[in-house]
Each structure stands twice: as structure tokens, then as C-alpha cells.
């Protein structure tokens, strides 16, 4: 900052007294609410253009289809706010789902046992990533590239590459059951989202997640145990990815060792569309939920309108670029 502007600021007093030009205000508004506005516009368009879009059945279906990517995206949001990334989530989906499917028939009535085993797999992979990042000083991108490969290999090896199918009734319920009119995956996703929103937005830990992402050195100097914060976010990321894997397995009534391949990129796209910065320090759970649901209604709408599925990835890409451009205008 030049001396000149510094002095002008002094004359003007505290920064909040600065007059903002109208164009800045418009930019800020578009930057802050652009994705939400975009979401509403698409929603209204589809409600008019696609006859079956605005039915309770279809909307519930959209959320159900989005819930797996959504669950994974919750943990990814924590990680990306610390300026990290987790490429292993797709492999965790595959491995956790596989462990769940292998144990589910054997355990009979006690379906929470394979559930816990599946979640433990997520914790284990998250722990491995975090250990490499925090203790080994390895960049998150590389550390989780390694755990991505390791977890995928583990999923292939334990079944010798075979598909496992046929879960017991209660395990299947997680994927296709209902509580009242609402599918169980939707309930799991919404509860997890509310819990994450609370932890990130209201607790001391959440505040430290933002601090680590904003300035890790400063966070250390004020006495925050940055290693513990980083460990925790990768454990959260592992658990939410594993939860996604369990829901996927339960819904398909079986697990393939290659399940979840490529999910990491869809998840990262959804989180970025929701306003989280790859550079860390910025992002919210509610933003991520909107990002996930936006991609969900767009895919759903294209199906309803009979657009060839070849176009889906391209459209996702365009939305991603749009979101990144909008995020530049976000207010500080």
C-alpha cells in the first residue's frame, strides 16, 4: 500500500466510513449472493420448463441423489478452509463401502457393527493423510494422492477385485429406507450438514479452522495447536467420505471396489461452487449445501428435459467457472 493511500485512509478515519461506489456495491452483492440467485433462477426455470420438476417426489429425489456427494462435501469444506485438499475421498467411499458390504450379511441383526467398521476405515485413511501432512510435512495434495491410491488398492485387494452384493435388510435401509415421506439418506445428509454448520460456525474449533486457513503462522503464535486442528479436519473428511460410501453401498445393495472413482473432483467442484476458496480461510457449510444442490437440480433438470447425458460434465464445468468468477466479487 502506498504511503499516499495510507495517509488518505488516516484522514478518512476508520475503514468502514469509506464510501463505496455503486458498482462496488453491486459487485459485492452479486459476489455474495450470486450462486444463491443463480440457484433460484435455475429452480424457477426448471419449475416452468420441466413439467415433473416441481413435485415433492422429484425434489426429494434430487436431494437423495445429491446426498452422497453432499456428505463428502461437508468434510471437504472443513479441509479446504484450512487451505488443504483431500483427493482420497473417492477411494474412501469405495473402501468403506466395501468393508460395510462384506461385514453386513455376516453380522445379522447387529447392523451397526459393519457401520462402525466402515466409518473406522474413513477415520484410518483420514489419520494416514493427516499424519503425512502434519508430521511428515507433505503437501496435502500429494499426501492425499498417496492415500487415494492406497485406499483404492486396499479395496481391490480385500475382494480380489470382485463385487460384493446382497446386504441384510437393516443395512439396506440406510440407502433405501424412509422415515415418514423422507428418504433416510436425505435425513442423514441434512443432520450431518446441520451438525457441521454448528461446529464450523459456532464453536471454538470452527473458529480455529478458519484461523489456520487464514494464517497458520499467526494461529501458532496465538497458541492454537494447528497440528491438532489439521488432524481433526482430515478425520472429519475421512468420516464424512466413509458415510457417503455406506449410503452408496446401502442404496446399491452392494459394493464394487471401484465405487466412488472420480468423486473427489465432483466434490471439490461443489465445494468451490459453494464459495469455499482453494487458498483457505473462506467458506461455509450452507454455501457447500447450495453448491451441491445446484449441481443436483441442474443434472436432474437436464434429465427431465431429455438433454443427452453427454452434456452433463460440460455443464458442470461451465457452472464451476461461473462460480469462481462470482467468488472474486465477494465482499471481504
Amino acid at each position, binding site marked *: *500500500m502506498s*504511503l499516499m493511500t*495510507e*495517509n488518505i*485512509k*488516516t484522514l478518512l478515519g*476508520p*475503514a*468502514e466510513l469509506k464510501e463505496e461506489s455503486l458498482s462496488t456495491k453491486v459487485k459485492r452483492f452479486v459476489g455474495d449472493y450470486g450462486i444463491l440467485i443463480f440457484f433460484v433462477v435455475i429452480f424457477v426455470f426448471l419449475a416452468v420448463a420441466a413439467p415433473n420438476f416441481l413435485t415433492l417426489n422429484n425434489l426429494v429425489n434430487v436431494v437423495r441423489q445429491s446426498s452422497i456427494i453432499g456428505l463428502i462435501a461437508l468434510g471437504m469444506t472443513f479441509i479446504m478452509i484450512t487451505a488443504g485438499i483431500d483427493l482420497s475421498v473417492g477411494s474412501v467411499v469405495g473402501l468403506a463401502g466395501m468393508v460395510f458390504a462384506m461385514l453386513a450379511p455376516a453380522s445379522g441383526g447387529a447392523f451397526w457393527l459393519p457401520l462402525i467398521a466402515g466409518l473406522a476405515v474413513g477415520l484410518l485413511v483420514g489419520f494416514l493423510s493427516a499424519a503425512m501432512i502434519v508430521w511428515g510435512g507433505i503437501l496435502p495434495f500429494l499426501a492425499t494422492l498417496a492415500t487415494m491410491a492406497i485406499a483404492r488398492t486396499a479395496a481391490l485387494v480385500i475382494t480380489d477385485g470382485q463385487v460384493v452384493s446382497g446386504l441384510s435388510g437393516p443395512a439396506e435401509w440406510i440407502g433405501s429406507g424412509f422415515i415418514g415421506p423422507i428418504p433416510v439418506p436425505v435425513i442423514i445428509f441434512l443432520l450431518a450438514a446441520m451438525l457441521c454448520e454448528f461446529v464450523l460456525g*459456532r*464453536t*471454538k474449533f470452527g*473458529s*480455529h479452522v*478458519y*484461523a489456520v*486457513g*487464514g*494464517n497458520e*503462522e*499467526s*494461529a501458532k*503464535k*496465538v*497458541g*492454537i495447536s494447528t497440528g491438532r486442528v489439521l488432524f481433526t479436519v482430515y478425520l472429519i473428511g475421512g468420516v464424512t467420505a466413509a458415510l457417503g460410501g455406506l449410503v452408496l453401498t446401502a442404496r446399491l445393495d452392494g459394493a464394487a471396489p471401484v465405487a466412488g472413482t472420480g468423486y473427489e473432483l465432483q466434490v471439490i467442484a461443489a465445494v468451490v461452487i459453494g464459495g469455499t476458496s482453494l487458498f483457505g*480461510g*473462506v467458506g461455509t457449510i450452507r454455501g457447500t449445501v447450495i453448491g451441491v444442490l445446484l449441481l443436483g437440480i441442474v443434472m436432474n433438470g437436464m434429465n427431465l428435459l431429455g438433454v443427452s447425458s453427454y452434456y452433463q460434465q460440460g455443464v458442470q464445468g461451465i457452472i464451476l467457472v461461473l462460480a469462481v468468477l462470482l467468488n472474486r466479487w465477494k465482499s*471481504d
Partner: protein
Amino acid sequence: MTDAPPTTAPLVALKDIHKTFGAVSALRGVSIDVQPGETFALLGDNAAGKSTLMKVLTGVYQPDRGSIEMDGKRTEFPTPSASRDKGVEMVYQDFALADNLDVRTNIFLGREPQKNILGPFLRIIDRKKMEAETKRVLERLDIPINPRLKVKRLSGGQRQAVAIGRALAFDARLIIMDEPTANLSVAKVDKLIEVTQRLKDLGIAVIIITHRLDEAFAVADRFAVMRQGQVVGRFRVGDVTEAQVAHLISHGTLDDYVDTGSGIPEDRRKIGSTSSIAVVGSMAAHGITTNGSGS
């Protein structure tokens, strides 16, 4: 030493501190003491040992030998938080703020006040309390800043105020400022002088670590000059000239000092004070002694 032995117990006294890193002796028997409410400057070039000494005082390093006393009682600072619990706060050169967070969050970063919502097991950050306290400490500094403003939108001086406010919010008795003007523009240095005066009025002692003479002369009551891990001189401001201190910093002794009248190297006096001119004017008359060995 020219400063008279204090009549009351010093707030903090570091006694005969030694610290070695491998083959390097960073501190070789350093003693300083700071009185309650006093502004004390620690002068010296890079690698003189100023920062190491302050890291001993803030509990980041443990001394190999020597002791720390507070209020005349021997104490130990095994961790940074132990030192902070006793009211010793550090204001870092880079201010140690997180740009992406607002003012109130930065002030309480790492020490957030919490309130129970479902018994003691479910606790959330008490933002109302943070906001009220933030307003209170910034008012005490007479630098009002909106507590909800993100730090990235603040000027250098405002950032420093937030960093100092962080110390005030936790009832600091001693605030250590590391190179406080390094990240400020010239215009802000006068504000720093004002702020240290205000801290003095609040009865808070300040140690300023600096290699700028004019800064030390402008704000300090007393100062110590460090060189190569030892204290080579202790003075009350007014007892020596800037030129003499500059000589001491670079040579470690005043025995061979000759008043050439050419004054001080430009880089040491550039930053802004006006009061040092009066100091320079009034002082050549004063005799000075140094204790070259440090302690």
C-alpha cells in the same frame, strides 16, 4: 550503570540468562529489569540476542542458566501460555493476525470466551462478549474500529491497534512489542508514541524491541543496548546521545568513542521522531558509564 537501583521490586527481572543453540551462544549472562508502568527499550543490531531474550521471557525458550522474577518472586515460564497467564503479552512484528477473520475474532483468537448451551459439554463461542470486550479495549486505546470488520480491510496502524488490543483484553501487565514500527508507515509512528503513552497511563509496562534509535529515544524511559548476546549498556533516556548509542551498538563499548559531530548513520534515525533532537541537544554534557561485561 546510571539508573539508580529501584526502590520497589521490579515487575519483571531477568537475571544472568544464558542460552546456547548448539555451538552458538545466543545469550551470555543477560540481566534486565522492568519497573511497573515503565517503557523499556531493548536496542541492538540483528543477532544481538534481543529476540532470543524475549522468547525466554515469553516462555518460548527455556534458559540454560539464570532466573526470571516477577514482583520480586522467582518464577518459571515453561510454556507461552504460562507466561501469558502471568500477564506477559507479546505483540509480534507481523502482528500475528488472520486477515480473513474479523477484529473481535482476532482479538480473542486462541482464547475465545465460551458459553454453555447444553451443560458444560456443548459450548459455543460467546460472540456478544467478544464484541463488547473488543469495543472496550479499543476505546481504552482511543482507536475505535468496528469489531466486525475483517482485518484485511484495516490499515497498518489499525492492525497494530488490534494486536495491542489483544494483549489488553487479557489484563496484560507487560506488553512486549517486537519492532513495532517495522510494518508501519512514517505517519503511523507518531500514533505508536501516543499508544505507548496511553499504555503507560494505564499502568502497563512495555518492552520495545528495536534497532531504531529514534524510536527508542521517542518512547522509552530507559533502555538497554545488546550486542553479541550481552548487555553492553543501560541508560535512562537523556543520559546519552543517539550518536553514542549508535557507536555502542556497533562497537560494544564507548571507550573509543569520539564525538565527530557527524552524528548518526542515516538508516538508524530515518523514522520519524521529533523529540530525539532535543535529546541530542541536551546531552553531550552528561557523563556516561557503561558496563561492558553485561552483568
